């Protein structure tokens, strides 16, 4: 009996030591490179979708540094490697810099001017602010105009209720999410909810389940629920440009399915993968797309969403203080 008791006691004490240690890479240039490459290799969700040969990228970039390479140069090598992913959701953060890929909007026309929307023709100086929403009546009071610049800026149902009450005599509403780089998916769903009569399937989401590049879970439905208290019944136009990214991309995807809605402007910037964070042995943080999101037809939204009506700001209009995309939306609402 004593023997068995001793064995049991030793087993209980020694058992914790038996579980495999997670392998931490050494804090050297090589160790950090391997850690970063491995995180993307196993957890980034678009390697196959974007036809990226990540093994080849490892071969190419491991030759660009040694363990004695200075920290700034090494950071640039790592940043360049991440740039191959062509993803605005991928960043490497250090205490001295943040790598980024911005070509998803810098290679395209801006199609937005803050000075234009703040001119007397549109928001003017006397616009109202409710939470993160800036709003005013435009086009002689016929159209309600809301500029929402970040899905990180909060607003409440009460805010939106007042906004909709203010616009109750308007023929239509414009929600301008140009240059909105995203934020919270909760605000995306909340803002869309005012334009739905019924709960509607608007997309899907999956997540990585293994180290393989296409190891994904079954799709999970994303539904946009109709707001129970506040509802806009007339036409609504959503204005987009290439800087409409991430949570804004998600909002546009939802609004594509809303009754009486139309998307006007440029293709959105994308950012369909929900980003996660991880860490390298040297303390640098890596952000990367982890969970791909799809539209209601299971099409990927990573590269952006096409508008229903494509338009851009004309130079001649801009010179006259006219935002061509807003004017196009007004015309479509009044049609």
């Amino acid at each position: 009996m004593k023997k068995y008791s001793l064995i049991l006691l030793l087993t209980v004490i020694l058992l914790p030591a038996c579980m495999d240690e997670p392998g931490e890479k050494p804090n050297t240039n090589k160790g950090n490179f391997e850690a970063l490459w491995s995180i993307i290799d196993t957890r980034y969700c678009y390697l196959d979708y974007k036809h990226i040969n990540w093994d080849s990228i490892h071969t190419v970039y491991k030759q660009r540094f040694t363990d004695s390479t200075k920290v700034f140069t090494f950071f640039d090598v790592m940043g360049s490697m991440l740039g191959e992913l062509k993803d605005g959701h991928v960043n490497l953060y250090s205490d001295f810099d943040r790598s980024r890929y911005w070509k998803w909007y810098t290679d395209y026309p801006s199609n937005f001017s803050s000075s234009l929307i703040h001119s007397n023709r549109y928001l003017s100086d006397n616009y109202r602010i409710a939470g993160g929403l800036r709003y005013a009546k435009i086009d002689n009071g016929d159209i309600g105009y809301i500029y929402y610049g970040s899905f990180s800026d909060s607003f409440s149902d009460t805010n939106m209720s007042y906004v909709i009450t203010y616009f109750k005599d308007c023929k239509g509403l414009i929600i301008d999410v140009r240059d909105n780089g995203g934020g919270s998916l909760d605000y995306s769903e909340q803002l869309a909810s005012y334009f739905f009569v019924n709960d509607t399937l608007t997309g899907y989401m999956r997540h990585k389940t293994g180290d393989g590049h296409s190891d994904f879970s079954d799709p999970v439905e994303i539904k946009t629920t109709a707001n129970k208290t506040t509802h806009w019944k007339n036409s609504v136009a959503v204005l987009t440009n290439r800087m409409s990214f991430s949570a804004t991309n998600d909002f546009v995807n939802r609004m594509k399915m809303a009754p009486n809605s139309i998307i006007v402007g440029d293709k959105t910037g994308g950012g369909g993968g929900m980003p996660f964070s991880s860490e390298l042995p040297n303390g640098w943080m890596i952000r990367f797309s982890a969970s791909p999101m799809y539209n209601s037809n299971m099409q990927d939204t990573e590269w952006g969403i096409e508008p229903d009506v494509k338009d851009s700001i004309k130079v001649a209009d801009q010179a006259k203080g006219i935002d061509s995309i807003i004017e196009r939306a007004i015309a479509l609402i009044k049609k």
Partner: protein
Amino acid sequence: MKRNIFLFQLFLFSSLLFAQTNDEQKYLLTTETSTYGLSTIKLTDPYLSPISYSGIGLRYENESRRFLSTQNTNISKQSNFKLMCGLAFNPTITASMTYMGMNYDWGMHYHFRPFTGLQLLVGGLCDVDFGLKDISRNVNNPINLDLATNLNLSGVVIYDIPLSRKVLQLQIALQSPILGYMFVPGEGTSYYEIFELGNFTNTTHFSSLHNKRGINGTFSVDVPFKYSIWRFGFNYHELDYSSNNLIFKRKDVCLLIGSTFDIATFAGRGNRAPRNFISTKE
């Protein structure tokens, strides 16, 4: 007259006997111990970061133990309530992890008494474990929850060490989880997907020694002073668990100080305090 005096004396004697019988009425005492601790902690949570974080923590623990009944002093019931918080850093001290934890367990022990001054307690404790780890700089995965319920094997050794003027009580307590259930999200599953979209697939897992192993050991000495008994102790807690290809680790080493005392509780019609106990309710 003599007969009356005899009857009166008999009455007094029987009254005295009755009073003595009342004095021998047994009451259960509950041993309450409260301790405060300062610990070093090491946390590994690959959902938040593949890097282990180390730091310091604070702990409060309350232990309550009493026998089941006055007739049975071989089986005791015990409950423990623990609160913990900690702040840990990655090795390069560029990020911090905040930890908050709460644990409540309840169970029973059988008391073996091989010889005077030694008690061996063997039993089981069911616990509910809640923890929250936060790396605030993370995006979409800044927080991970530890939610678990376990059946723990528990053993306690209590040994009285008589000194010239006092008796020190040495206690060694060991606990280890045997089986239970735990919440572990998938490595790539966001809390948005779990709680907003309601996808709980593969988030709750049966746990046993194949995927959850741990040891929680406390060595303590109770030192009696004139009006109080102080407890000085040392606790080592290591817990490893794995699921969804993730291995989580929690290790803390804690110095404890606290006090222990016995209380008797009276409540209700069937358990009223004796008359020589004075309550503010009376």
